[in-house]
């Protein structure tokens, strides 16, 4: 059980780093989808079943489709892309930044005592009950956000608006 969480966390971090450092934008989008899948696995193992299903289906599916449809619009030759954006040089410092950040955090955690105690899950709570009965304000916010998304797509993609 614990080993699966370790492996999924390792996959998550490495897919994220590869998504950032890759030179081709299409491979970055695929790595992002794989990172979403790994995050869904981590969430499932921690006990959040509804959230992990939502994350895998929405982020790994919908967002990747949006990215690939946006990528398919730009048809530049691959050498021009590499020369224009120069991602290999721009993102080259990322592993060093992460190693430095990782070292500082590990020393910080080992010296200061941060007490992280896990409390057992309270079995009275049921996700459906909480979500539909107590989070009405969030649901209103989500409806408004989806409305804005629809309006934004209509406004920004209208052809011939010059």
């Amino acid at each position: 059980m614990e080993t699966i969480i370790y492996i999924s966390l390792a996959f998550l971090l490495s897919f994220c780093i590869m998504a950032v450092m890759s030179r081709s934008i299409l491979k970055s989008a695929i790595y992002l989808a794989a990172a979403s899948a790994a995050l869904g696995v981590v969430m499932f193992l921690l006990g959040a079943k509804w959230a992990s299903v939502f994350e895998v289906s929405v982020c790994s599916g919908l967002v990747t489709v949006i990215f690939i449809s946006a990528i398919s619009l730009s048809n530049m030759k691959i050498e021009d892309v590499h020369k224009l954006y120069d991602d290999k040089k721009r993102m080259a410092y990322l592993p060093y930044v992460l190693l430095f950040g990782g070292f500082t955090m590990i020393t910080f955690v080992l010296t200061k005592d941060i007490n992280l105690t896990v409390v057992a899950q309270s079995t009275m709570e049921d996700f459906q009950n909480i979500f539909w009965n107590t989070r009405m304000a969030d649901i209103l916010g989500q409806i408004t956000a989806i409305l804005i998304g629809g309006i934004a797509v209509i406004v920004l993609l209208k052809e011939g608006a010059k």
Partner: protein
Amino acid sequence: MTIETIMLIVGFLMILTGCYCLIRSYHMLKIIIGIEISMKAGTMFLIFAGYMNGHMGLAQAYVITAIVLEVVVAVVLAGVTIGLYHKYGNMDIRNLTQLKG
């Protein structure tokens, strides 16, 4: 090095990765990928907090709302990127240098 501290450290490294990509990239879609990675790290922190204090139902309600907002931000930014592409022919943010001072 319990598993909780390792999850905290992985979360922070993910936010660092996302912010680095957001700041250093020239391609607009890479900037969106950076924002997405950071928001995924935020949802991972929410689930981790729910695991720690026992209120997993409430944490899942928060995470689902955060995922909906993340998708809407991605859609709106992708729309703007396509607008940028129609105007300049590529998705480079170095085209936008008119406002200074």
